[in-house]
């Protein structure tokens, strides 16, 4: 489904991502784990077509992103780490924009927006302004915005940041439902328990490189649990650098 082949990205002197490669199969859920500044967000940006790799290639279904970016963008849904919502507008108006960006007609948009809102449990709040929503509701709507064009691959960049346990649980339910529907998910997070619950496979990144690419079962078997593996592989030094 997704092939990432030795992609690199440099910002000035700093190497954000250094020749990483991995594949993601159709229907698989892969977690990208790493401390701050490990290169997770930069990797997601390159896979989603926002940022062009300095070298290497990203392919989806065998088609390189460099060949027809727009066609591939229609097959990818991005849930950005920062809330990508207009707070002054209603949930419905936000979804109308996001669906429109992917060329959805009025009838199709209506149907897809209803379905997306139902999936994230916001059907009864569609007419309300986003600024009246709780943090968890905004996060769920942020996910709904990436589903309207029914992408094959959904990229989620820390989708549970700053939400309470109840909302996080609701988001997990949403993601598990997407997984059941056969969607391919690539998921970045700091939370080990999220990755353990949701992911089939986990990539641990640090300093722009992949340190491990294994199944959750493998990590549990080799390191007791995922957190132990993470700490052992990435070390205990504090990472105060900017996320990239």
């Amino acid at each position, binding site marked *: 489904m997704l092939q990432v082949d030795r992609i690199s990205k440099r910002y000035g002197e700093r190497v954000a991502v250094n020749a990483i490669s991995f594949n993601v199969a159709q229907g698989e859920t892969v977690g990208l784990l790493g401390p701050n500044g490990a290169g997770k967000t930069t990797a997601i940006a390159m896979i989603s077509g*926002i940022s062009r790799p300095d070298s290497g290639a990203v392919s989806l279904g065998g088609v390189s992103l460099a060949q027809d970016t727009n066609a591939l963008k229609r097959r990818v849904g991005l849930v*950005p780490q920062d*809330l990508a919502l207009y707070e*002054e507008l209603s949930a419905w*108006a936000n979804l109308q*924009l*996001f669906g429109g960006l992917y*060329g959805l007609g009025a009838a199709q948009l209506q149907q897809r927006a209803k379905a997306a809102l139902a999936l994230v449990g916001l059907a009864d709040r569609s007419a309300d302004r986003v600024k009246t929503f709780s943090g968890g509701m905004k996060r769920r709507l942020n996910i709904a915005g990436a589903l309207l064009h029914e992408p094959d691959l959904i990229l989620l960049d820390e989708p549970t940041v700053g939400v309470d346990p109840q909302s996080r649980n609701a988001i997990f339910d949403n993601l598990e439902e997407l997984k059941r529907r056969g969607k391919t998910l690539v998921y970045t997070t700091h939370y080990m328990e999220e990755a353990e619950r949701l992911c089939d496979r986990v990539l641990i990144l640090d300093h722009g490189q992949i340190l491990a690419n294994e199944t959750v079962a493998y990590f549990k078997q080799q390191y007791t649990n995922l957190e132990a593996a993470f700490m052992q592989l990435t070390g205990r030094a504090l990472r105060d650098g900017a996320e990239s």
Partner: protein
Amino acid sequence: MNTVAIRALIRNDLRLYFADRRAVIVGVLVPILIAAFFGRIFGGGDQSGEQGKIPIAVVDEDRSRVSQAIAADLASDPLLEVSTLGRVAAREQVKSGKQNAAAVFPQGFGEQATKSLFSGVNKPRVELLVDPSQSTGARVIQGLLAQYSMQEISKEAFSGEYGRKTIDNYLQQLDKLEQTPLRADLRSLLSAARTLNDRAAADAAAASSSGSSASNAEQHQFGLSIPYTVASTSVTARDNTPYNSYAHSFAGMAVQFILFAGIDAGVLLLLTRQRGIWQRLRSAPLSRSEFMLARALTTTLISLFQIAAIYVAAMLLFKVRMEGSWGAFIAVGISFCLLNATFGLMLATIGRSASTTRSLATMATLLLVMVGGAWVPAFVFPRWLQDASRYVPTRWAVDGLDGATWRGLPFDAAVLPTLVLIGSAAICLLIAIWRFRWED
């Protein structure tokens, strides 16, 4: 071309604009209020002449017939609002800005001025105390003072007491001198003036004793006066169509506040770049040109809404009329709105932070609208500034809107302003395209 995405972006931006009621009010109501204020202080719509009288003080230390007559003439002039004050009070009022100027007639002014009319020496000195910030008003006062002084002094010379005394004095002096042909001619002239003076005085006395009015008595007095009358006609769209100063102030304020909307659009784009929504836009199948086109069209539509709302208020509430061509108004309006849209885009591409961009752009806009004649008509500027303002697109926008409204110019007159505005829009667009960073 992803037209569905472009429509979605436009619809979304319009929703955002109308969701912010404060922005709508600032963009529509505030320009209407300020235009109403400027229009009112520059004459309003009635132009009855009661507006804009120049306040002036007269200090009459002479209290002669001449000085009193000049003061009365000044008081009856429609351009002036005259107060009679003492010297100290007059000086204070000029200093505090209550009077534009004060004319002080010194003691002995009437007699001395009448003598000087013939001799040209020992002229009395009229002191004119002037507010330096009101130099135009002071020049008007100087002109009127010269006119009325000449009128009253010459009247006194040929018909009054001082004149008779002065002529007698000259005749006596001539009699003592050796007779020459030139002096003989001068003597004849002065004698004729003396006769005229006697006759005028006798006629005036007769008219006065028979109960005729003072004005009839004055008809028997002779003096110099301006040998023509002036019929002033405001050259507006049509004869009998009065100038409506609201028309200009609404043009100016529409231009100013639409430019402010352009700044807002640019700043909003800068802010969007810093938010998660930018990643969402960038991850969508949307090209750089589609995105820029959508932004430009949105700002154009918002600007058109503003100009339409402002002019509807101007027409309904302030009697601003399209005395010229509706086509010209539409052409200038649309081209200015296009310029505003590309101006906003350009700002977003050259600006670094939202707050700095807003401050610098607001300052630049205020300068543009001021030089462009949006606050006061450009013809009051010094010559060099008038010439410089021709390179400022706001001047063409204001002139174009003025032409379509109160000047009543035909469509042809709007062609050049429209082309200048479209050309300026093209320059802004080229800069925006050159500088726009789509990828991070």
